């Protein structure tokens, strides 16, 4: 079997993998290999999410780099990559319909403020001023004016495109079977098809499948899976540029630059989905449930036509924040997984930090709290 070597191997051609490849190339690393199991780059969650670029509601362990991305990376990303990633920084409104909702939002906002994020709760009147299209049932909302959204599909492929131009070697249909050690260090990446790649550093950014890969060298991370669906409408007249969410998690989404509305929602029956990870079948119930939820907040969309629905697997981490960490026990291994459904908005920062980690540099913000070995028994 052929053997190929590289300075850094990235397993997973999603937005984090592509961004990491780009930042490594930008830092002058000549020999970067990205291995994508699917035929298409960005086949997983990277192309299936709602496009939120959000700081509000983040755990304190990830807020610093979420803010770093918003402050230092997203505003110039289109220019940097030479592709319009459709970034809008017009704020995030998390809507509430009950006093209990508002209380929840109040707590969320208070915690975020403590961490230095501009976020507060606004009343129904202010909600209407921010977004006049919302239902009167919305009695208040949390408001984070620096949040926004972007096009996840284009962002992923823009990173990919630039990385390709800069010489990163991408391989698709390159499903990794196992990792292999060499003299106590992670070195080998063995594909199902038999090819072997070797590198000093291997970054695993392969969603839930990261777990299977890490296990082949004796590392396990507490991830689970969750299937989430989204829908998109036909093109609509421009209504608003903000990102929407709900205190109750009824739905989330935004109007894209193109004019279509992209919303994520659920039926409430997702926990029990029994479907292999290779399947991406939507449920017969979710789209209707989603429409009911959306219309109860934005009644004006009742006549907007749904053109498409899709679903994707989320790699849920035990404590709701990802593992972004060097693995001390297995030198050469860097894990980046468990993004728990909100990894898109942080991808520029995560990509940059993974590149820094691969080069032994200090990361732009401290992420030691996202270590792979942070999980402890509760009693």
């Amino acid at each position, binding site marked *: 079997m052929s053997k190929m070597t590289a300075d850094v191997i990235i397993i997973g051609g999603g937005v984090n993998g592509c961004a990491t490849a780009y930042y490594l190339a930008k830092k002058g690393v000549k020999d970067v290999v990205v291995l994508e199991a699917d035929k298409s780059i960005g086949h997983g969650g990277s192309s299936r999410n709602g496009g939120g670029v959000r700081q509000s509601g983040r755990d304190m362990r990830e807020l610093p780099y979420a803010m770093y991305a918003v402050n230092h990376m997203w505003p110039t990303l289109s220019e940097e990559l030479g592709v319009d990633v459709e970034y809008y920084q017009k704020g995030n409104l998390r809507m509430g319909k009950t006093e209990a909702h508002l209380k929840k939002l109040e707590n969320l906002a208070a915690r975020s403020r403590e961490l230095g994020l501009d976020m507060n709760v606004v009343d129904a009147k202010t909600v209407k001023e921010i977004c006049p299209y919302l239902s009167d049932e919305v009695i208040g909302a949390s408001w984070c004016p620096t949040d926004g959204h972007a096009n996840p599909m284009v962002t992923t492929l823009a990173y990919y495109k630039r990385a390709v131009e800069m010489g990163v070697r991408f391989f698709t249909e390159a499903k990794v079977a196992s990792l292999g050690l060499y003299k106590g260090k992670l070195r080998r990446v063995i594909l199902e098809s038999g090819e072997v790649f070797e590198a000093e550093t291997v970054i695993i950014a392969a969603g839930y499948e990261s777990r299977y890969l890490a296990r082949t060298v004796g590392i396990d991370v507490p991830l689970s899976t969750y299937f989430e669906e989204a829908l998109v409408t036909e093109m609509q007249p421009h209504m608003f540029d903000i990102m929407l969410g709900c205190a109750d998690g009824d739905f989330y989404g935004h109007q894209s630059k193109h004019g279509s509305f992209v919303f994520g929602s659920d039926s409430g029956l997702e926990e029990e989905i029994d479907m292999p990870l290779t*399947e991406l*079948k*939507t*449920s*017969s119930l979710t789209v*209707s449930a989603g429409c009911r939820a959306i219309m109860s907040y934005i009644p004006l969309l009742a006549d907007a036509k749904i053109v498409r629905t899709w679903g994707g697997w989320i790699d849920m981490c035990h404590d709701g924040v990802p593992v972004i960490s060097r693995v001390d026990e297995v030198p050469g291994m860097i894990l980046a997984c468990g993004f728990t459904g909100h990894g898109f908005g942080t991808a520029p920062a995560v990509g940059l930090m993974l590149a820094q980690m691969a080069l032994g540099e200090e990361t732009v913000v401290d992420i030691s709290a996202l270590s792979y070995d942070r999980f402890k028994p509760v009693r």
Partner: protein
Amino acid sequence: MERYDLIVIGAGPAGLSAAIEAAKNGLKPIVFDENARPGGQLFKQIHKFFGSKEHKAKIRGFKIGDDLLAEASENGVQVVLNATVMGLYPEKEVTVKIGEEIHHYKGDSILTATGASENMVPFRGWTTPGVIGAGAAQTMMNLHHIKPGNKVLMLGSGNVGLVVSYQLLQAGCEVVAVVDAAPRIGGYGVHAAKIARCGVPFYLSNTIVEVTGDEAVDGVTIAEVDRNFQFIPGTEKHFEVDTVCVAVGLSPMAQLLKQAGCKMKDTPGGFIPECDEYGATSVPGIFAAGDVAGIEEASSAMIEGRIAGAAIANYLGYLDADGLKEKENSLEDALGSLRQGMFAPKNRGKLVTKTEEGIDTSMNLLEKGFVADDEIERYPGVTHTVGIHPVMECTQNIPCNPCQDACAKGCISIGANITSLPVVKNDVKCIGCGMCVASCSGQAIFLVDEDTGDGYGTVTLPYEFLPLPETGEKGIALGRDGKKVCEAEVVSVRSAKAFDHTNLLTIRVPSDMTMKARFYKRA
């Protein structure tokens, strides 16, 4: 959730046939169709079908549709119209939009018979209003009685392009040209001949360079292409038209099957599910029949539907293996015979240079749309004898034989092989009844009397245009190429119920023109 033995998606020829067959075996099928009326494309088909009796040959498509609906109703098949299936989900669940609501149904089995959609080809101006699919033109004319335009150019010389061109002529449009990038006509020669003799020119190895017009089509430029389908500069021709019809093939609408996770394959007939001989897909209980499982004719879709219906009955325990085998045997023969001849799937894209009888193919027919005067004599249906006799200008082996039953006297013989060219037996006396002329779906049979005295003879030809000429009127006889051959006088116009709207026009022409005059044009 409401549950049915069989949910059929699509009330076209395949879907209805399957539902009927299933119902006959005791299943309770329900059929959903997104259209306001059932029958799929059948009700747009105003021409007579090919095949044999069991394929409902010489019956017009819409009549076959009526018969199918009647049979469905007799067998208790429930057809729900304006019912759009939105998705095909696990556990064989479908979501259906009916009225202003979505309904969920489950089937113990599902038959997808969603048909096909028209292909498009991009050229400069292809999105200009007035560029339409041939199927759309057919819908406008035959369902809504609206003329698609006045001057039309047809792109595509397959059966759809040819049949629709003829219908455009019937509707009173001028068809300025039939254009095809391929070097040879793709559809049946008899369909091409029908329009060639009306004067429609064919431009093979040509395609559209550009459609002009800002708000609506006002013209179209075509040019010759080389073997690699690249334009040859300097060969451009411009036509002033208001409509460009595109008939460049169909694509199966297999999205539901794909959504359901059926294994798919890419074939020359389109992206289709992998099916066994019964139409069963890779997902147990999900079947496919008709164009969605590979583009063919409505006749084969009906047989495929029957086979799938029987197979579903067997799958659900309503029909035993022997019963299925019996059904299959009878239907397989019928299906097999339809897939014979020059246009059989195996011959797709091939040049067949000789007929099954060993006669040279008419190259004029393939390249210009008509059999040349010096080629026609080589075919067994073309003979000379004293008195009236049929001249059968049937020159390609296609599965069709109604003519041999049409002649009560037994003048015409095709034999056991349905694709054989018809042979005229001159030892049997033709009485000139014209049944054979009206029976020929390809309008390729003429009654000729080469000498009625005074140096004149008569030609009786099939005529499906309105208004009908009147006896005694004088006009022009056109040759197979659509060019004037001589003056002609209408000596009789016959319409009979048995002719099923094919009128028999007898014209009087000079004797030496009786083997040349094949159409009549009013002066």
